[in-house]
């Protein structure tokens, strides 16, 4: 069956919009993207969307937010509020995964491998900050395709 998860995109969006300029300014590497190159998320087949969403939420919770401490307490608060929203959605997506409603095909496995390779191509802090700065790429894709 379909995996239906409710989440407050508006809240996450508002949190990210508030710190987007600050976070993206910390990422000087224009020539590399974690999420969108060489293959755009928008090219993912609909059957693979749930799997990619599930794994990307794991990616952000396990590998991104915890490495994104800044000297700015306002920015840190926004990051932790986004992280909390991701945590609750990840839990719900986890249930879908357990009930086999979130199957990973070969394409999504390849895509996830590419994202991890892009991430591991940088040092942890740069990779985490770049990934956080690309949150709107994830949100744009989720809103458009879900």
């Amino acid at each position, binding site marked *: 069956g379909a995996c239906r998860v409710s989440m407050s*995109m*508006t809240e996450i*969006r*508002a949190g990210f*919009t508030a710190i987007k*300029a600050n976070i*993206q*300014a910390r990422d000087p590497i*224009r*020539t*590399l*993207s974690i999420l*969108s*190159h060489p293959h*755009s998320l*928008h090219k993912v087949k609909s059957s693979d969307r749930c799997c990619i969403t599930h794994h990307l939420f794991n990616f952000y919770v396990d590998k991104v937010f915890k490495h994104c401490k800044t000297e700015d307490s306002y920015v840190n608060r926004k990051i932790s509020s986004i992280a909390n929203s991701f945590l609750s959605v990840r839990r719900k997506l986890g249930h879908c995964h357990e009930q086999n409603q979130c199957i990973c095909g070969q394409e999504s496995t390849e895509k996830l491998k590419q994202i991890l390779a892009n991430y591991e191509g940088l040092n942890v802090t740069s990779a985490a900050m770049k990934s956080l*700065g690309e949150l*709107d*790429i994830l*949100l*744009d894709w989720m*809103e*458009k395709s879900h």
Partner: protein
Amino acid sequence: SGELCCSLLNPRNVRFESINMKNVLHWSAPEGTSNGVLYKVKYSVYGVGKWIRKPECRNINRTWCDLSNETSDYEEQYYASVKAFLNGMFSEWVETTRFNPLTDTKIDPPMVSVSSTEKSISIILTAPEKWKRTPEEESVSLLQVYPGLQYNVSVLNKKTKKRWFFSISNHTLVVPWLQPGTAYCVSAQIHVTTPLLDSGFSKEHCIATLKDK
């Protein structure tokens, strides 16, 4: 030769200004300069290696450059950069922040058309179109770009000054139980919840309900 390099002050406030995804790069002249400064422009797709020159904006003296064509894929994000020249001196390249056409554009108000009967007003709303290269190109409504697009509609009774607000996803609205022979003014705004984008309110369209027979 090193001294000549970058002895011209940089262009300032380099940024994209976007309306309905017509994406135009704007900047201000280097401080203390006004006439005679020329500029060139380049842009890049975020995540892709190379800068791409914009030939139509090479050696220009204006302080804007339309990059709508180059940034029309709103599934991508972009940077643009400007360099200034004057009397053999030149500035550094000055970059924009990362530009996301989907979230960083402004949206025009909707078009509003109204008609009336004795006791009701019918309102038809049309969302603006996404920028397109040529008039012949197929139009894309911003409704297609932002599936969650809604309309906030304000209806004012000119006599009593009473105002109603409606929030609708549909593009038509019928306001019933109105007073015959009365002038009503309608104005509407586009509201996209995520990403959060609001247009301004359209100008008011006033119409009178028909008189009682």
